């Protein structure tokens, strides 16, 4: 027995708990470091170090006014840096600043608890930026640490070892998993946000832009980020037919192509010459409205529109991963009837690219009004003039197209597409630029196609009187390998390849594909779980009424059942009321009673042993061993398990 009644002074936070809470918060905030301004990261780290130093040296905390001054200055700096105090990035910066301050004010266990709660909240801010599997695992470990920290704050004396603290926290969290899963599946999801989101909530996502100027696309090419993934129900069409249609650009200012989407038509008007290709696209959030589909889309997904230019537009910006079923007609004819090309498709800015306009007029004179012949001639021109396909095109002057066509003759797909359309318009042929992606990598493991930002591409569309809008890929004339084998194959030998396109060792490549198929499964099942998928899943499970009221009833019932099961596990008595030593000793007494020597009620174990040994001198030593061990177990602190084992053995072997 230990005498242990210690008076606890005012519950000041101990050094041990200060270290726990500081380190845990620093670990949770660590992923933000790459996004926060350097001065703030430095400030937060300095505060952590300062707080630990104060705790270690038992110094007083800094004065409140100093802290208020630092925080005021910090908030001002954030305001200057972000131009706002609200929104995602500024909000996170402000939160980190405030936590640093709170840390410097933490005196008591209660303050520690508040910091632990903020720690949980800080975990969630990380999900704004990444919800990948590694992030999830890292933050799960952080949640484990905060939980253990909270436990640490409740101890009144430091626990004997940290391991039991961590183990209890882990056990508690593991027991939470069933209920968490039930809530995750059954909690009614709503469509869309509850209130407006800060404008920068999903900023910083890479992807197609709605403008194209020299250099826009080849920046994307260096990004290994996934643009979208597609799962085909039939076979995958050949690589050179995988033109993923994105923004259609119609307006040119001499350097930059841009667009404002034209009227919504929502009408699939091309005639279907072949059966469509069916597939499902899961597009990564890009904070824009366009949806990608193979040329030409034959289906309009829910809450999306199709413009006259055959461009699919979501009704709201895509701020979370979106999955939609799609079908496309690879052989198509669009806009053949009538002349759907207004002056906009022929417009060129005045005073730019005089040489190209001259060339266009020449082509028109040579071929009369035959748009198709003009187009062929222009493509031939590109092919014969020894143009070079490169990721590092030379700089272009004010007359960018002239410079490209007549001087540098080296460029990336955007240069070819842009020059070609300018040339076509100069020759009076209605045309436009289409951007999107070309090709993709097939992941045999997950049986889907990965389209990355590095697959970004630009091509042209030309209107021919009887055929309508026809896709022309000028890059193809220069470098046919681009469409067949991707970017890496298209670039000349010796060109510096982007990291993502470096030839990888087969093993590493296989690993990459495996990880991506894992990420895809994670995206589809966990991250993509929303209103629609919830309804689909529950309907498949035989639940017809998926109204939130019905779900709430089921959820409450499930919570009750699961909590009951967990309670049965945690509250079951752990040997609590069983006294194994007494049980063994009772067996011994019963044996003696059967042999005719019953223990009297008032007789202590020692007296009984004396009497029994006198009656059975042959067993005296065994009787003595049993009694000694029982007494030791009862009244002394010994190695309980060892003694208990010996006691049981002796009782079992005893023959009276």
């Amino acid at each position: 027995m230990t005498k242990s009644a210690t008076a606890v002074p005012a519950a000041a936070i101990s050094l041990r708990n200060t270290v726990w809470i500081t380190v845990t918060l620093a670990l949770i905030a660590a992923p933000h470091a790459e996004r926060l301004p350097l001065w703030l990261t430095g400030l937060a780290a300095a505060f952590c170090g300062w707080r630990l130093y104060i705790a270690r040296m038992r110094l007083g905390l800094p004065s409140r006014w100093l802290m208020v001054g630092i925080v005021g200055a910090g908030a001002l700096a954030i305001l200057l840096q972000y131009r706002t105090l609200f929104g995602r990035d500024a909000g996170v910066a402000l939160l980190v600043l405030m936590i640093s301050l709170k840390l410097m004010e933490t005196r008591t266990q209660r303050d520690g608890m508040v910091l632990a709660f903020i720690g949980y909240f800080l975990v969630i801010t990380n999900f704004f930026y990444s919800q990948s599997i590694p992030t999830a695992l890292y933050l799960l470990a952080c949640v484990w640490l905060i939980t253990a920290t909270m436990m640490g704050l409740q101890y009144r004396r430091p626990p004997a070892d940290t391991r039991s603290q961590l183990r209890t926290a882990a056990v508690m969290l593991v027991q939470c998993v069933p209920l968490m899963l039930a809530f995750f599946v059954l909690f009614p999801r709503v469509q869309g946000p509850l209130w407006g989101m800060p404008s920068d909530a999903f900023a910083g996502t890479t992807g197609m832009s709605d403008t194209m100027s020299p250099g826009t696309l080849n920046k994307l090419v260096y990004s290994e980020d996934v643009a979208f993934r597609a799962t085909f129900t039939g076979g995958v069409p050949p690589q050179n037919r995988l033109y993923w249609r994105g923004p259609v650009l119609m307006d040119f200012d001499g350097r930059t192509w841009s667009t404002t989407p034209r009227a919504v038509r929502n009408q699939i008007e091309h005639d279907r010459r072949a059966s469509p290709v069916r597939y499902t696209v899961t597009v990564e959030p890009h904070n824009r409205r366009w949806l990608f589909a193979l040329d030409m889309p034959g289906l309009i997904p829910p809450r999306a529109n199709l413009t006259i230019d055959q461009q699919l537009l979501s009704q709201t910006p895509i701020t979370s991963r979106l999955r939609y079923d799609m079908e496309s007609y690879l052989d198509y004819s669009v806009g053949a009837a009538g002349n759907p090309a207004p002056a906009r498709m022929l417009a060129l800015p005045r005073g730019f690219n005089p040489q190209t306009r001259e060339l266009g007029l020449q082509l028109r004179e040579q071929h009369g009004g035959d748009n198709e012949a003009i187009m062929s001639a222009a493509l031939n021109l590109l092919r014969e003039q020894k143009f070079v396909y490169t990721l590092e095109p030379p700089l272009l002057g004010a007359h960018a197209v002239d410079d490209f066509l007549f001087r540098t003759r080296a460029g990336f797909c955007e240069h070819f597409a842009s020059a070609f359309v300018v040339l076509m318009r100069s020759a009076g042929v209605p045309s436009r630029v289409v951007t999107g992606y070309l090709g993709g990598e097939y992941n045999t493991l997950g049986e889907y196609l990965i389209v990355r930002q590095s697959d970004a591409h630009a091509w042209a569309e030309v209107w021919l009187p009887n055929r309508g809008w026809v896709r022309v890929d000028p890059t193809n004339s220069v470098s046919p390998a681009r469409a067949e084998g991707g970017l890496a194959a298209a670039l000349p030998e010796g060109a510096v390849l982007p990291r993502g396109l470096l030839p990888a060792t087969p093993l590493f490549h296989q690993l990459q594909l495996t990880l991506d198929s894992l990420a895809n499964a994670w995206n589809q099942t966990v991250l993509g779980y929303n209103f629609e998928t919830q309804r689909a899943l529950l309907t498949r499970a035989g639940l017809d009424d998926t109204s939130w009221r019905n779900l709430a009833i089921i959820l409450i019932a499930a919570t009750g059942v699961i909590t009951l099961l967990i309670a049965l596990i945690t509250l079951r008595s752990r040997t609590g009321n069983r006294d194994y030593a007494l049980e063994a000793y009772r067996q011994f007494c019963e044996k003696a009673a059967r042999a005719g020597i019953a223990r009297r009620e008032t007789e202590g174990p020692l007296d009984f042993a004396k009497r029994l040994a006198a009656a059975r001198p042959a067993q005296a030593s065994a009787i003595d061993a049993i009694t000694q061990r029982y007494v030791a177990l009862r009244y002394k602190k010994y190695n309980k398990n060892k003694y208990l084992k010996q006691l049981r053995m002796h009782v079992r072997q005893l023959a009276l």
Partner: protein
Amino acid sequence: MLATLKAHLTDWLYQPRKPEAGTIVLSQRRVYILPTQHGLIFGVVLVMMLLGSINYGLSLGFVLTFLLVALALNGMLYTFRNLARLHVSALRVAPVFVGEPALFSLNLANPGDLTRHAIGISRERRPQGDENYCDVPSNAATHLSIAIPTQRRGRLRAGRLTLFTRFPLGLYHAWSYVHPDASCIVYPRPAPAGLPLPQADAAAGSGASYGAGQNDFAGLRTYHAGDPPRHIAWKAAARGQGLLTKQFSGEAASEVWLAWDQLPPRMDAEEKIARLTRWVLDAHAQRLAYGLRLPRLEIPMAGGEAQRERCLEALALCEISA
């Protein structure tokens, strides 16, 4: 009115019990649990996290929020389990003088395999923040004491005590009432020192009749009830010779009678008790043999620790009809 109603409701809810003798088992029915202030704040944080997750469509935000909801529920079970099924018994309470705190100790036995952490004790339902705490290791027992201030001489009952815990997460406050059958004898506050003992010098020198002193060991005799425990020959007892008391001889002690009647009648009864208490202490300090005469009680002449205790207890419990 409202307060009375509240008191009745509380009594009905928590079923105040009569003092219980022996071991009290904190059965599951006796353990109550409610969220703490921190628990409520945690609830608010969870709601905020849920709203954020819904608004921004953060799937992992949902996962985290629901994990913490489950953690909050699980924490309730853990807090409950940390207190339930403890075996509580009261220990003997050492007597104190009025003004000194009475230290009531409970023996907390943990028959289970789980260590109980941070068990606190308090007289109030809501702890004030300066409570004693203890950990009870698995299959072991610990003492937990609470100091209760004393204001009157007499027998101080432990009253209803609250055992509570917030372990492991601090989100819940689990508590249980125990009303052990324990009491503390509170000795009267002695009058200020200075007044001489009555007739002390009259008896001095003549008193060879009571030859028991405390200086030199003179021999052993069989134990009589009331012999001071520190005079018992424990070594002999350990050898199985039964209880023997060591006898000492020394300087002959004087004899003195401390009598209620000797005190002036105009003195207040409590003042008389205070004066007698002071005399008992002085006589004991001077190693005199003394007897005590109270209105309805007489304690015969004796000396030593046992006599001091007997006299002080008599003074503590002395009832004076005015």
